[in-house]
C-alpha cells in the first residue's frame, strides 16, 4: 500500500497513524490550538486592512494563509508578531489572552518570523546573523562576556554549536563567513529562515518564503519547511502565493480576500470552495 504522510489522516485515523509508524515514517502530532485569533479587525486610518477575521493555529501543524494581493495576509502576520495592534479582537497564545505587547517581547515568548522583503543584517556574516537569533537565550554577565571567561565562554560555545547545527541543517556551510549582503536572493531567504530557527521558536511565521525563487530553490525551501516541521515539531504559519506549494505542504489553509476570511480548511476543502475560486479567478458581474 502507499503511505502518504498527510497530517490530517494521521490525526483522524489511528489505524493510518499506526501504519505510518510501522513504515518508519514520523507520525506528526498535530496537537491543541496554540494560537487563536478572535475577530481581529485592523484599520489604518480609513482603510480596513483586516475585517473581523478569526482562525486558529494548532500545535505542530503547517498553517497557510493565502489570498490575492492586498488581502491583508502580511498585516495578519504583523498582528501575530506584534508590529501592528488590532483595533478590535483578541489574540490568544498558549491559552492566554495577549495584552498590548511590543514585538521584542513577543519574540521572547517564542514567536520568530521571516519577512517578505528580506530583513537581514546585511553587513554581518551568515554566522553572526543566525547568532542574533539566539540573543534572547544568552544570560551570562556582560562583563564576563567582554572578558570571554568562564560561564560566558561555555555559553558562547554552546550557542555556537546550536547555530552550527542549523547551518548544517540548511546546507549553508559554505557561506558561513560571507556577509549576507553579498549573497544571492535565495540564499538570503535561507539565512533568514536560519535566524528565525535559531530562536527555537514555538511558532514560526514565514512571509512568502518562496517569493521570487526559481523552481529548484522553491523545492529546497519546501523541503526545509517540511523538515523543520517534522524534525523540530515547530508550528509554522506561512503566507505563500504559489498554490501548488501551499496545497502540497499545508495542513490547513485560511483564505483572505479584501481583509475578510472567505475560506478555512484542508487544502482540498479550500480548493473546492466557490468563494475562493471566485476570488482567484474572478467572477463575472452581470
Amino acid at each position, binding site marked *: 500500500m502507499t503511505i502518504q504522510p498527510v497530517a490530517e489522516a494521521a490525526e483522524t485515523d489511528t489505524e493510518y497513524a499506526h501504519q505510518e509508524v510501522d513504515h518508519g515514517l514520523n507520525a506528526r502530532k498535530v496537537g491543541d490550538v496554540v494560537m487563536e485569533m478572535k475577530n481581529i479587525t485592523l484599520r489604518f486610518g480609513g482603510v480596513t486592512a483586516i475585517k473581523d477575521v478569526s482562525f486558529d493555529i494548532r500545535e505542530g501543524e503547517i498553517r497557510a494563509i493565502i489570498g490575492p494581493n492586498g488581502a491583508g495576509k502580511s498585516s495578519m502576520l504583523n498582528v501575530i508578531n506584534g508590529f501592528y495592534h488590532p483595533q478590535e479582537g483578541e489574540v490568544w497564545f498558549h491559552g492566554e489572552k495577549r495584552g498590548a505587547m511590543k514585538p521584542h517581547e513577543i519574540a521572547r515568548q517564542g514567536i520568530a518570523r521571516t*519577512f517578505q522583503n528580506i530583513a537581514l543584517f546585511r553587513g554581518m556574516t551568515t554566522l553572526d546573523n543566525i547568532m542574533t537569533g539566539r540573543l534572547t537565550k544568552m544570560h551570562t554577565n556582560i562583563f564576563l562576556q567582554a572578558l570571554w571567561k568562564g560561564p560566558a565562554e561555555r555559553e558562547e560555545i554552546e550557542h555556537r554549536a546550536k547555530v552550527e547545527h542549523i547551518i548544517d541543517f540548511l546546507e549553508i556551510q559554505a557561506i558561513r563567513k560571507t556577509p549576507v*549582503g553579498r549573497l544571492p536572493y535565495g540564499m538570503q531567504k535561507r539565512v533568514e529562515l536560519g535566524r528565525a530557527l535559531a530562536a527555537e521558536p514555538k511558532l514560526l511565521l514565514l512571509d512568502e518564503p518562496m517569493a521570487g525563487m526559481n523552481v529548484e530553490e522553491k523545492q529546497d525551501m519546501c523541503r526545509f519547511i517540511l523538515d523543520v516541521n517534522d524534525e523540530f515539531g515547530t508550528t509554522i504559519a506561512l503566507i505563500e502565493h504559489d498554490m501548488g506549494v501551499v496545497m502540497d505542504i499545508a495542513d490547513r489553509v485560511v483564505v483572505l480576500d479584501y481583509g475578510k476570511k472567505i475560506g478555512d480548511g484542508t487544502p482540498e476543502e479550500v480548493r473546492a470552495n466557490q468563494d475562493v475560486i471566485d476570488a482567484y479567478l474572478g467572477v463575472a458581474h452581470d
Partner: protein
Amino acid sequence: MGFLTDPFFYEVLVSGLLAGVMYALVALGFVLIFKASGIFNFAQGVLALFAALTLVGFQKGQVPFAHLINAIFGTEVQFWSDAGIPDFLAILLTLVVMIALAWVIVRVVLRPLVNQEGIILFMATIGLAFVLEGLGDIMWGANVKKLDVGLPSGPSDAIIDATGMFVDKLEISAAVVAIILVVALTLFSQYTKMGRALRAVADDHQAALSVGISLETIWWIVWSVAGIVALVAGVMWGAKSGVQFSLSLIALKALPVLMLGGFTSIPGAIIGGLMIGAGEKLFDFYIGVPFLGGATENWFAYMLALGFLLFRPQGLFGEKIIERV
C-alpha cells in the same frame, strides 16, 4: 633622511600624537553611536560640552537654572554651597545626569523616528545639538569656567630630564584614559551579546525587533555610553582649554579623524586621531612654516580627509558598504 636625527622631529611628533589622542576621544563618541544605530550624531561635541559644564557646576555647587530662577522670582541665587561637591562625587553625579539625558533623548527624539532614514535621524541630532547647547547655557551660564579634577598638568620633568622633550602631563593622562576606553569599548562591542545586538539594531530595526531585541534599551545603552565618553572628552578638553562654548566645535575636528579611521571602527578612531594629530603638526613644522607662511594646522586635517574621501571613502578600518544592484 636627515630629519630622523633632528631632535625637533621627535618632539613635534610626540606633541602631535598626544594632540591626536584628544581628537580621538571626541571621535570615539561618534563611532559608538554610528556603529550602534547608524546615526551620525552631530550633537556629540555639544554632549561633551554639556557634560563638562555639568561637572563644573556640581564641583562649584552652582544652582542649575540660576539665571532663570533669578529672573522669574527676583532672587539672587547663584551657589547653593561655596564648597561644592567633592570631585569624585561630582563625576558620579554627572554620569547619572548623562545616563538620564540619554534616556530622555531616546524617548523624545529617537522613539518617534523608529525605522526612518539615516538622514532624518541625522537632522534630528542637529536639532538636539542646538537644544543641548541652549540647555547648557540656561542651566549653568555662558561664562568660561576652569575645570580641575585633580589630573596632573604642566610639563613633565621626568621626560624633560630624560629626553629633553617638552610633554604636558595632562596629555599623557589623556593618552592613558584613551587606551583604557578603547580596550573596554572594543571588548564590549566585540565579545558581548550586547555588541551583536548593537550591530543588529544599526542594520535593520524591524529585523532586530523580530529576534527579540528591544530598540529602546539598546539605544539607551548606546547613548549612555556615548554620554560617558563625551564626559571623558569634555573633562580632558575642559582641563586643557577651559570649559567654554567653543568646545562644541571640537566635533568638527573629529570629522577628519572619522574619515581617516572609518566611521565604524573603534581602533580606527584612535589611529585616525593619531595620524591627524601627528600629520598636521609635522606638516606645519616642515612645510607649513618654512614654505606656506604657517597656520596650516587649520586646514591640513580637512585636506587629508578630502584625499581619503576620494580614494578610500570607507576610511582605513571602516566596513565596506555592500550594495547589491
